[in-house]
């Protein structure tokens, strides 16, 4: 599951403006996320709610970012926009160098499928569908053959330590296990970016540790992770901490050095 799979030219939703052969190398220096002056307003006139009031942010490849903020600070709105689930009122959002606002509905679906892995607070597994099928789902939407899909889904489940629970349905799994299935589902397509929206919000301490352990491992293996939380100890796992208040970034602190691109490339290839 190296980067070569997600940059298959046939599957590319939209060639990056700077695309071409140099893409692989330059991809390591170009930020995964590049958000400029993002504004999101719900409603209009007197009742307008300003969820984001101009957020600019770049996230480098391999980084591990925690976004903190009280409820209503706009962190979920930001996450939804980053995950291509919602569109900003104004501002520019480049994902892997591609301007997302210019993409069609179909291309957005492809971006969500190939480049983003989403982990939700409420797990959001498909009910009455076993863990393996849940993890397979993004690959099914990507049009992968059943045998290969199953192999990768099993590998992803093994990575989160749930290989032997592959045939359990969500209601037969604990919260922590469900969330780990969700993480496996997020990483199975080898996305550039894993977005986690309060992934531990509904979990007990034990499960929180398990899920964070998985995320930490993912980051060490080179995956870029953006995580929303309001728990300081969860945020401590990240290399970089961003605080959001009233739709604006008020603090952006590095807690640990960004893994070196060279090291990263070696880890990914290994």
């Amino acid at each position, binding site marked *: 599951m190296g980067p070569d799979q997600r940059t298959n030219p046939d599957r590319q939703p939209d060639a990056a403006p700077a695309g071409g052969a140099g893409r692989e190398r330059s991809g390591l220096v170009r930020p995964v996320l590049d958000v400029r002056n993002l504004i999101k307003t719900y409603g209009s006139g007197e009742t307008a709610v300003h969820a984001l009031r101009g957020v600019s942010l770049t996230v480098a490849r391999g980084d591990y970012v925690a976004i903190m903020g009280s409820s209503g600070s706009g962190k979920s709105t930001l996450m939804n926009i980053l*995950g291509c689930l919602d569109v900003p009122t104004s501002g520019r959002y480049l994902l892997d160098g591609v301007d997302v606002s210019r993409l069609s509905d179909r291309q957005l679906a492809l971006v969500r499928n190939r480049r983003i892995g989403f982990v939700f607070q409420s797990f*959001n597994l498909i*009910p009455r569908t076993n863990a393996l099928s849940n993890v397979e789902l993004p690959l*099914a939407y990507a049009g992968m053959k*059943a045998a290969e899909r199953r192999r990768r889904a099993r590998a992803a489940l093994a990575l989160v330590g749930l290989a032997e629970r592959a045939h359990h349905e969500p209601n037969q799994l604990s919260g922590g296990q469900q969330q780990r299935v969700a993480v496996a589902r997020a990483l199975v397509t080898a996305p550039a970016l894993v977005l986690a929206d309060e992934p531990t919000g509904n979990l007990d301490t034990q499960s929180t540790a398990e899920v964070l352990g998985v995320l930490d491992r993912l980051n060490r293996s080179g995956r870029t992770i953006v995580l929303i939380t309001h728990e300081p100890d969860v945020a401590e796992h990240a290399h970089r901490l961003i605080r959001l208040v009233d739709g604006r970034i008020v603090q952006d602190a590095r807690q640990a050095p960004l893994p070196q691109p060279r090291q990263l490339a070696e880890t990914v290839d290994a």
Partner: protein
Amino acid sequence: MNLLETIRFAVRGVTANKLRSGLTVLGMLIGVAAVILLVAVGNGSAKQVQDRISALGSSTLTITGGGRSTGATTQNFSLTSNLVPALSDRAAAPHVASVSPVVTTSEDTAYEGSSHTIPQFIGTYPSYLPAENYRVAKGSAFTQQDVDSARKVVLIGSTTADDLFGTVSPIDQQVTVNGTLFTVIGVLGNKDGTGFTDPNDVALAPLTAVEQSLTGYGPLNQVIVQATDADAVDAAQNEVTAILNDKLHVTDTANEPFRVLNAAQLLSTQADTAQTFTVLLGTVAGISLLVGGIGITNIMMVTVTERTREIGIRKALGAPRRTILAQFLVEATVLSVIGGLLGVAAALIGSQFTIVGVKPVVVPASVLLAVGVSVVIGLFFGSYPASRAAALRPIEALRYE
């Protein structure tokens, strides 16, 4: 996502809520079964009419008389046996094979204490038997000699024989008909039921004997003319009409005081009626199929609403719009096709039974049509809910509780 995969997802969706899916399928089942079965009933009754046409013999003409008002003057016309020789004239009517005058009456008949009312006591010529497809099962038919000498002999139908004689052989027994003794000389073979009256509850006797002792020498009820063959019916009809016009001095041919009915013509009206009946039944059944289809729309709307969150998850995982569309369309089609196939099965089982006196005859085309229509209904009635599901914005679908 290939089609097989989509179908698997759809089947999983359908089986997730078995009761609801079952009821929806039931709606389709009833619709499809109704279409096939009711069309089969209509078709069966049309077939009965056709059988009746061939039973009656397509080469006979029925002449009925009666008065007809023509403006100021009223012509009174009565068929009499005097016309028979003219109609039988080989030169004037070369296409006429036989002419049988008929008087019909209903008579109380008694044999040794048992009595029976024969609804059709017919006085006629021997030629009436072949013209009306009667055959003699036991004994023998009366002859022209019997007619000439007005012998009181009678042929009875099987129902009449059973009612009057039970197990006794009726041949050569004497029955009292309205006070006159008639000798039974034969029993008619069974004739298929073709109308509302039992064709086996009849008595046939020489015209002269019936006129002499029962009806008197009044007008005939009808004259049955048999053409030389089925193709000659039209020619015979023209000849008969010409002879009658001549004999009765009819000047206004547009308003004849008699009617010559062709058996085939008579029944073609009934065939038309049966056709209308089939169309009517088919329409009613079609409406129930439509209602079944609306049921599918309804249930798919509920499904889409209920699974909004699931749709949101699928979209967040990168399901393209058309995959969601296909999933719900296929789900609706799976419902309707299962309903359709079960409906075909139900209709085929139902068609084994006689319904309101009609043996249904399944039209193969209606089976194919009903199944085809059920697929189309699934696609058509599923398309609105499916497109609604596909058009959901992912974030709104995910937030839906």
